[in-house]
């Protein structure tokens, strides 16, 4: 399942979407708006997306994860619009026969979503200032060397519908 929503994430529904009798493990990652970063206080993140391309990229990511791990089900839901502190902007849920794959796949999916999917956040701070978050691509990107040693090219990946 791939979704972009303006609503608060229904985590019960997301976890339910990956349940399978063939899976001994399921992992759900939630990305939530954090209050403090480098001494600055955030009050809200506001997300914007290039909708059709974001859906396409999330679908491609999901497809590739099925090739890399023995995944039973995989769901990615991203919220757009305002996401206050403590609320979640993204949920990634996977289920696999054994737990190691679920942990690895979920980690790879969020790491890759954060570099590949055309979604942007604008941060609103307690002091009233606002700024778009545009990370420097030349900075070292978080990767798990066990699962992420090859460069990623999603463009050849098919998309599977929800």
């Amino acid at each position, binding site marked *: 399942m791939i979704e972009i929503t303006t609503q608060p994430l229904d985590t019960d529904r997301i976890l339910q979407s990956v349940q399978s009798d063939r899976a001994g493990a399921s992992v759900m990652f939630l*990305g939530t708006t954090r209050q403090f970063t480098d001494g600055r206080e955030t009050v809200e993140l506001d997300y914007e997306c*290039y909708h059709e*391309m974001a859906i396409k990229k999330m679908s491609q990511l999901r497809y590739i994860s099925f090739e890399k791990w023995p995944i039973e089900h995989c769901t990615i839901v*991203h919220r757009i619009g305002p996401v206050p502190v403590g609320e979640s902007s993204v949920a990634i849920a996977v289920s696999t026969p054994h737990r190691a794959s679920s942990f690895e796949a979920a980690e790879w999916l969020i790491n890759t979503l954060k570099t590949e999917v055309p*979604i*942007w956040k*604008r941060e609103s701070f307690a002091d009233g200032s606002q700024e778009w978050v*545009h990370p420097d*691509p030349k900075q070292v990107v978080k990767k798990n060397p066990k699962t992420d040693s090859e460069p990623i090219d999603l463009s050849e990946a098919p998309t599977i519908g929800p």
Partner: protein
Amino acid sequence: MNISIALFASARELVGSISVDLEVSEQATVCDLKIALVEAYPELASLMSNSVFSVDHEYANDDMMLRDGVEVALIPPVSGG
């Protein structure tokens, strides 16, 4: 040919519009479009060095040739999740 470029995030804010239209040659590449965009909208210059273009919902290299009717977007560094 006329190419419409969708703008997002700070690019949208800097230009004050959700898209801009540029006139380029029939043989124009993505690189040519980049140059034309910064010429027409110099306020985008600092953002361009870290941004990429998408063509028909796929990331595009500088040497990709454009065609009439393609859907182009300027993709500043993404920050989903």
